[in-house]
């Protein structure tokens, strides 16, 4: 790492309307170095990567490659100057073979060259061999395994021998042995003297590979250094784990129902060819508060969407002993399993009041009025916001409205997916108190998905840890610190 930096990013800022996605970010990468850029969803890491590639045009700041300014250039020019991007979601040409797909990346960007150079074929074959696609070179992408599709993306990105390789979530959806293969490939890039930028949700998945890590949160750099240092960093731990852990759990034996209200048995979900959830089993008793903790990308949202009938899955989901397969998502919601999703899904151009009333669409007028009053007690701020359009609310208020709207449905089981996502600490406090009151004053059953352990644990009676599409730990919250926290980050 003695060489001068190859990529120098200085004061990079990207705004989308009023939202500042990346704020004054600076970093550099030297030739032969791997930098991990990490941060939870919405932290701005992907936007930062896209700004380097020119897919997004930076609002301010400079991006220099070997001293040449890239900022403001279109992405095809930046690619020509030696930057390659490995996309996470690929859409290869389905009717061409793997070889032809790689050849596309080697074609000249000229209209006058109808046919490719003769050496293109040999070069494409060499690249395929190198990334481990040699055996499937004549197959078409739809017939490939997921890992091979990712290899194809890798092959395309490095086809032109870029000096700088950007990799978006290198290991998402891969098995352990495939992760090892990919790590070796990425190390080879480094050994060739290329600079590599890995973008991922958390330090853990890239720690073995990176030379340095830069952690982002809410658009800003919060820590930089060696992987172990960053993992120990106070701010990083607070973002991922929150502060000190407290618990007021009720023992599982205190729930009297013999058959748990919700049973998830060996559920698996495939997104295309990526395994998003693998053999997941869990249960929730009536009246219980269960938290599923896991980093972004671990599969929490997928699990909840499977329970809500929003994605096809294998295995079984049983509600009050009855198999839910075959019902529509709306039917499941009417049966009492109500999800408040990470994306909130509010009706932006309707008022707060209208949003809430739609939540109570199945109730009689009297019941609805009662329910509204009760919710305004739980979230007083919403009462004063009634005539306001939902999209004009602040993030925290929108989250409260989303929870309140779900509660309007009188759920038997409330599924809360990442309620703390992108919210300031003050708001977390308010939300936390509302959940406490909910738990103390009603008999509601809750399944909470969280990355922020400090938010998830105090309310929980029981905790599951989800990691890489699998449940890796289950137990009461007071044992989490001792048994699971070390492996969490």
């Amino acid at each position, binding site marked *: 790492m003695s060489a001068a930096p190859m990529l120098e990013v200085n004061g990079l800022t990207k705004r989308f309307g009023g939202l500042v996605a990346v704020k004054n970010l600076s970093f550099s990468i030297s030739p032969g170095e791997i930098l991990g850029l990490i941060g939870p969803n919405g932290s701005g890491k992907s936007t930062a990567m896209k700004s380097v590639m020119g897919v997004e045009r930076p609002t301010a700041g400079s991006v220099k490659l070997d001293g040449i300014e890239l900022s403001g250039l279109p992405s095809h020019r930046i690619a020509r100057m030696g930057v390659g991007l490995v996309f996470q979601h690929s859409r290869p040409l389905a009717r061409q073979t793997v070889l032809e797909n790689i050849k596309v990346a080697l074609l000249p960007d000229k209209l006058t060259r109808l046919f490719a150079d003769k050496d293109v074929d040999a070069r494409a074959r060499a690249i395929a061999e190198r990334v481990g696609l040699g055996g499937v070179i004549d197959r078409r992408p739809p017939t490939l395994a997921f890992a091979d599709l990712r290899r194809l993306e890798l092959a395309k990105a490095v086809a032109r021998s870029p000096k700088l390789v950007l990799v978006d979530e290198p290991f998402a959806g891969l098995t352990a042995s495939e992760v090892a293969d990919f790590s070796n490939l990425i190390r080879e890039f480094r050994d060739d003297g290329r600079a590599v930028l890995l973008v991922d949700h958390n330090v853990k998945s890239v720690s073995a590979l990176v030379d340095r890590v830069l952690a982002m949160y809410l658009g800003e750099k919060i820590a930089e250094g060696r992987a172990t240092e960053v993992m120990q960093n106070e701010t990083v731990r607070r973002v991922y784990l929150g502060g000190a852990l407290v618990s007021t759990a009720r023992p599982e034996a205190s729930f009297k129902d013999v058959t748990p209200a919700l049973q998830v048995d060996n559920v698996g979900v495939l997104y295309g060819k990526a395994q998003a959830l693998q053999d997941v089993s869990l249960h929730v008793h009536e009246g219980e508060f269960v938290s599923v903790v896991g980093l972004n990308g671990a599969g929490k949202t997928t699990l909840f969407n499977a329970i809500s009938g929003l994605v096809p899955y294998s295995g079984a989901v049983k509600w009050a002993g009855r198999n839910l397969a075959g019902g529509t998502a709306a039917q499941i919601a009417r049966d009492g399993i109500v999800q408040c999703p990470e994306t909130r899904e*509010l009706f932006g151009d309707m008022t707060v009041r209208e949003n809430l009333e739609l939540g109570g669409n199945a109730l009689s007028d009297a019941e609805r009025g009662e329910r509204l009053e009760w919710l305004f007690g739980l979230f007083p701020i919403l009462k004063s916001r009634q005539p306001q359009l939902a999209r004009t609310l602040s993030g925290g208020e929108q989250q409260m409205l989303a929870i309140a709207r779900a509660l309007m449905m009188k759920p038997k089981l409330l599924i809360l997916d990442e309620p703390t996502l992108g919210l300031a600490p003050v708001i977390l406090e308010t939300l936390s108190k509302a959940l406490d009151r909910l738990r103390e004053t009603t008999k509601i059953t809750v399944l909470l998905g969280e990355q922020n352990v400090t938010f998830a644990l105090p309310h929980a009676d029981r905790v599951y840890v989800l990691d890489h599409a699998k449940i890796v730990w289950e137990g009461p919250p007071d044992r989490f610190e001792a048994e699971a926290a070390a492996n969490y980050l």
Partner: protein
Amino acid sequence: MLFWQILIDGFAISALYALGATGFTLIFGVSGVLNLSHGAIMVGAAVAAWAAAGEFGTGPYMGALIGILAGLVLAFATYFIAVRPIQRSRAIAESEKEIFILTATLLWGIIIQEAIAYLFTNNAKTVLPIVEGVTTVFGVRTPRNEYFTAVICWVAIGLLWFLVNRTRRGKSVMAASMNPRGVTLLGIELSSIYLTVWAIYGLLAGVAGILLGMFLGVSSYSVGPLTASAFSIVVLGGLGSVSGSLIAAYVVGYLETGTAYLISPAYRTIPALLLLVVVMYLRPQGLFGRR
């Protein structure tokens, strides 16, 4: 005199345009479907009313009712034959469904149009008007039917507004146009919302078609221009924005009427098209589009 003439004629025509375009834009807003058999459904309703009232002698009221029913039936047929099979198809990639639905609704429109031509010939048909006679306002002699058309259009639009803003069902339709997934999460079946919207659409298109048949007359040749005018109004107003289409309908209606009276009927549609081109280049989401 000419001023009042333009004001009155323009108002009636614009009201008709507005009614025709409202259902069209509502469907786009809720399910993202641009229904290119729109003109055929309007003409189908008008011809059914004409045939019932005139050929089979049911009288104008019963004829109108049968016409509206025909509009409803045709709208559902469009949905079940040309739209839903494509939406649910696994053989067609998501990104290509748009062009498939456009092509299918277009073909379906041609099928309706040709069936009408085959059964009832290509001749222009004027639906037996419910209101007859002529009245003079501000020195302009206007058929009473013209006022009747404007009144019915606005009553229908008013009813739609009431339905969408004041009833539970209507509100869930509105909500679905903003966020379909949110509606599902609240336990409301999207499939039933779609049926509701196509029913509303069928009624509106039916009424608009019959009024058009009474006011200006229709033939199977009106199919294309009717679809095109609804299309331009909706684009001008902003795809999926109901209030936008209402305003755009008046802009287009008055531009056309004004041009026809002041310059020449031959130039009728040109200023509106020019406006459309300017809007497309400067503000492709339409004057009032949300996107």
